[in-house]
C-alpha cells in the first residue's frame, strides 16, 4: 500500500504532455497547485477550487477532470495533458485556431479548461452535435464571451473529419 504521511513530501511520477515528470509533493497538495507552482505549467488556471467553474480542467488518462479536486498524489502513474500540450509544431491546433477565428475568448482565463474538455470530446466524439457540445461546455463558466464564439468555434471543428 502506498501510504503518504501528512506534512511530508513524497515522490510522484507521471507524464505531463508526454514528458516524464518526477517531483515531490505533500499529500494535500492540489493537482492545480502542483502543476502551476511546482511544475511551472501556468496554463491551467484556478477559478474556484470547488469544482464549479471548470477553469482548471485538465485531462487525466484522457478524461477531462477538475485539477482542483485532485491531489498531486493521485496522478501517480497517470498521463496528464494540459493546454500547453495542444499546439502542434506548426502552430495552433484546429480547435485553438477556431477559437481565435470565432472570437471564442476575451480575457482567456477560462479558455484552457474549455479547450481540454473540447479536446476530449473531439477525440471521442468528433461528430458531436451542438446539444452535446453545449452539454460538455456547461461545465465551464465564462464571464466574458456569452459563450457564442466558443460554441461557433466548436461547431466549426466538430463534424469535419
Amino acid at each position, binding site marked *: *500500500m502506498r*501510504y*503518504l504521511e*501528512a506534512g511530508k513530501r513524497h515522490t510522484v511520477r507521471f507524464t505531463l504532455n508526454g514528458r516524464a515528470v518526477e517531483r515531490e509533493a505533500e*499529500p494535500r497538495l492540489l493537482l492545480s497547485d502542483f502543476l502551476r507552482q511546482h511544475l511551472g505549467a501556468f496554463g491551467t488556471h484556478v477559478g474556484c477550487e470547488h*469544482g464549479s467553474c471548470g477553469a482548471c*480542467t485538465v485531462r487525466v488518462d484522457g478524461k477531462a477532470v*477538475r485539477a482542483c479536486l485532485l*491531489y498531486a498524489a493521485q496522478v501517480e502513474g497517470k498521463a496528464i495533458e494540459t493546454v500547453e500540450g495542444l499546439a502542434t509544431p506548426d502552430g495552433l491546433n484546429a480547435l485553438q485556431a477556431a477559437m481565435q477565428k470565432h472570437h471564442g475568448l476575451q480575457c482567456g482565463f477560462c479558455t484552457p479548461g474549455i479547450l481540454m474538455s473540447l479536446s476530449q470530446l473531439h477525440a471521442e466524439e468528433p461528430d458531436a452535435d451542438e446539444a452535446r457540445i453545449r452539454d*460538455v461546455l456547461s461545465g465551464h463558466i465564462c464571464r466574458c464571451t456569452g459563450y457564442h464564439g466558443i460554441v461557433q468555434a466548436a461547431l466549426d471543428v466538430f463534424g469535419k473529419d
Partner: protein
Amino acid sequence: MKPAAFDYACPDNLDEALALLADRGDRARVCAGGQSLGAMMNMRLATPDVLIDIAGLRELQAIAVVDGAIEVGAAVTQDALLRWPELVVRQPLLARMLPWIGHYQTRQRGTVCGSLAHADPSSELPLALALLRGEVVLRSQRGRRVVAAADFQTGMMATATADDEMIVAARFPVAQAGTASAFHEVAQRHGDFAIVAVAAVGDKHAIRLGVGGVADMPGVIDLTWPVADAALNDFAWALGGADDQHATARYRRELVRRIGRRVIEEVGDALS
C-alpha cells in the same frame, strides 16, 4: 481555500482499505472520485486525518447484472455507468437520470457509490436508489452486509455506514417487463443541485413516486392508479421541505404537485 493536512493512503486491495478503516474509524474518509468530498476538504468543512483512495481498486471496478440487479462497484464513475451499453435496456430510468448529475467533467471522476455515500439531499442517485428500492453493499473487517435503500440513508448527508465500513457496491434492480419510468428535474441552471427532482416507476397496477431536493433525503410513496390530486398534494406536504435562498418550501411543494403530475402522466402514457 486549501485542504488541511491529511495522510493519503492508496491501498492495493480491499482488505488493506478495510484494515485501515478499522484502525482509523471516523478519522478516515474513503475517497473514490472526490467530487464532493474534495470541495468540502478544500473549504475545510471536512478535515479527515487520512484519505483512503479506492479509485484504483480492481475489486470495485465492475458493472454486472447479479440476481436481477445492476451491481455497480464503488470505483465505477457515473460516466462509466452512463456509457455502459446495457444501461438503457436494463434500467432506462438510470440512463435518464445520470446526465443530470453535475457535469461531463465531474461525472468522469465522481462515482455512483460516492454520491450515495455523500447522501446530498438534492442528488439524483440517492433518489434513484430509494425509488428503485435498491441496496447498498457494505464491507468492513467484521464482514459484509447488504442494506436496503430505505435503511441506508438516515438523514441529510447521513447514512447507515458505520465508521469502519465502506460501500463496495450499489445494487439497482433491473427494470421489469411491463413497467415504465420517468424523470424530471427542476434546477436553477443546467447541472445545479435539484430544487426538486421527481422520478417514478410504475406498472399497470401501481406507481411509485420519488422526490429529491425537498427534504433531508429522498421521499418515496407508492400510489395506485388513477393518482388523485389529493394524494399527490398530501405527499408534497408530507415531505416537509423548508425555505432556502434558492426556493421557498411553497414553490417546492408546487413543483412536487406539478412535476409529479407530469411524471405520472408520462409513466401512464408509456404503459398504455
